[in-house]
């Protein structure tokens, strides 16, 4: 049976411009979540839940970390939650990243608030002894977060669109500097994912997608993505949010 869970807020910290890190306590989620899954959070007074990726899990302490950016009312309210308050969530939801088979090295390509699920993945892969390289894209310096965390996992390139920090340009601008890898994992805005999957079309890869959701469980058909040009589709909330790069049409 699937569950509706209560997570207790442990801490809320601002880590970059409009960007927050929230630590939550819940045993069930901490014990069962895999990288790439998300929580479907109920924010008081809102009809629809907010999907937020799981950015880190501390199984020993039953803690889950989420990172989110304020983009509207729901995330604004979320940022105002105080330690001790509890949040109703569905999850862990969706399917996570695939990393079956023999993997020696992976590339993580994250854009802005798409980075959180990749961090969770990178940590897990590193523990398995897999070499991790990361490319992180941000709008500008004040948006940069989790650089140090990623550096702990492996070589990390930071790119800002305006060049105020790290390399200037897009995540794709630094790809020619990167040593070869077996598989890539990417999450970020659609234009970025398009550019990344195109540039890395010779590699196997996985992407994590976002779409506005109704139910978040697969029942309402709000969050579909085409898999071909003749009517095939997947549901992001249930079949995803992670897909093989060649499985969906962006």
């Amino acid at each position, binding site marked *: 049976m699937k569950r509706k869970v209560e997570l207790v807020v442990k801490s809320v910290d601002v880590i970059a411009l409009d960007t927050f890190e929230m630590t939550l306590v819940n045993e069930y989620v901490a014990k069962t979540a895999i990288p790439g899954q998300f929580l479907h959070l109920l924010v008081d007074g809102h009809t*629809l839940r907010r999907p937020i990726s799981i950015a880190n899990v501390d199984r020993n302490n039953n803690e889950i970390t989420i990172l989110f950016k304020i983009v509207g009312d729901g995330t604004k309210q979320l940022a105002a939650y105080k330690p001790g308050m509890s949040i109703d969530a569905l999850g862990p939801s969706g399917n996570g990243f695939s990393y079956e088979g023999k993997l020696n090295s992976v590339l993580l390509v994250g854009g802005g608030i798409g980075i959180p699920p990749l961090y969770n993945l990178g940590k897990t892969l590193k523990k398995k002894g897999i070499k991790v390289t990361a490319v992180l894209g941000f709008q500008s310096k004040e948006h940069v977060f989790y650089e140090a965390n990623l550096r702990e996992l492996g070589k990390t390139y930071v790119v800002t669109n305006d060049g105020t920090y790290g390399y200037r340009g897009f995540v794709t601008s630094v790809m020619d500097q990167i040593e070869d890898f077996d598989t890539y994992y990417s999450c970020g805005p659609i234009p970025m994912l398009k550019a990344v999957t195109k540039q890395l079309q010779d590699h196997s890869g996985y992407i994590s997608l976002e779409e506005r959701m109704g139910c978040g469980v697969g029942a309402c*058909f709000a969050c579909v*993505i085409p898999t071909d040009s003749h009517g095939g*589709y997947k549901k992001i909330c249930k079949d995803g949010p992670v897909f093989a790069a060649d499985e969906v049409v962006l």
Partner: protein
Amino acid sequence: MTDLAVDLPGLKLKNPVMPASGCFGFGREYSEFYDLKKLGAVIMKAATGEVRYGNKTPRVAETTSGMLNAIGLQNPGVEKIIETEIPFIAAYAVPIIANVAGSSLEEYVKVASAFNHAESVNALELNISCPNVKEGGIQFGTNPDMAAEVTQKVKEASNLPVYVKLSPNVTDITAMAKAVEKAGADGLSMINTVTGMQIDLDNKQPLLANKTGGLSGQAIKPIAIRMIYEVKQHVNIPIIGMGGISSAEDVLEFLLAGANAVAVGTANFQNPFACPEIIDELPAVLQKYGFDSVKDAIGKGHGV
């Protein structure tokens, strides 16, 4: 013991609460949260003649105390539904209502007929009111003559009781209700969503890819109550009421207005346990307001 049972054409309901069409898929997802046999019935997502992909995304937007959707009737087509979806729900021994959609008379008849040889379907909900299909569905829902025609054709073709689902986007809901009653409808289902729009300030265009969408959720409850109350005074067929229900108190309000049973849509998204929780709370709420059964409460908001 509070008696929750209701008997409607084709439907022996152990309780009056069912998930609304399109808000519950074909039951699979919510069956992972609770046992579907708890439900009064299941209303399936719309079926069309052939497979449909539906509208482009974004397909949903949140509004104050409500939401807009423009799914666009995405479904695997009626034959596939009969083959792969109905057996799944039927295993829960819960009455099934099939939601029938289309963009032409012929398609409605085709879909309705297909359910004749589907075991375990107890009734049809004739969706003449889906506002999110460009090709015509909506005229059936706003013109009494066309509504009557499609009702009659479907009644002729089907061996199941037919509940016609009315659109609130009309000047005169009573005229629509009377027209389909006269054409042979066994019941009514109301209300479908109210056409609305949200404009995205960042992109300066309607947020939904389809531009307009159907407004549902608590925001529309007063509209649903008004229409059911009005229609109840003019028709003699039962009404499945819906529109913003999220509590057992809401269910009672619909019963008092004249609904014989109710459907819960948007509330499932906020709380996947919405239906079973409402069913659990209903007896106490009925008792609190002086009713020993659901049947007692039906239409009691109309005075003596």
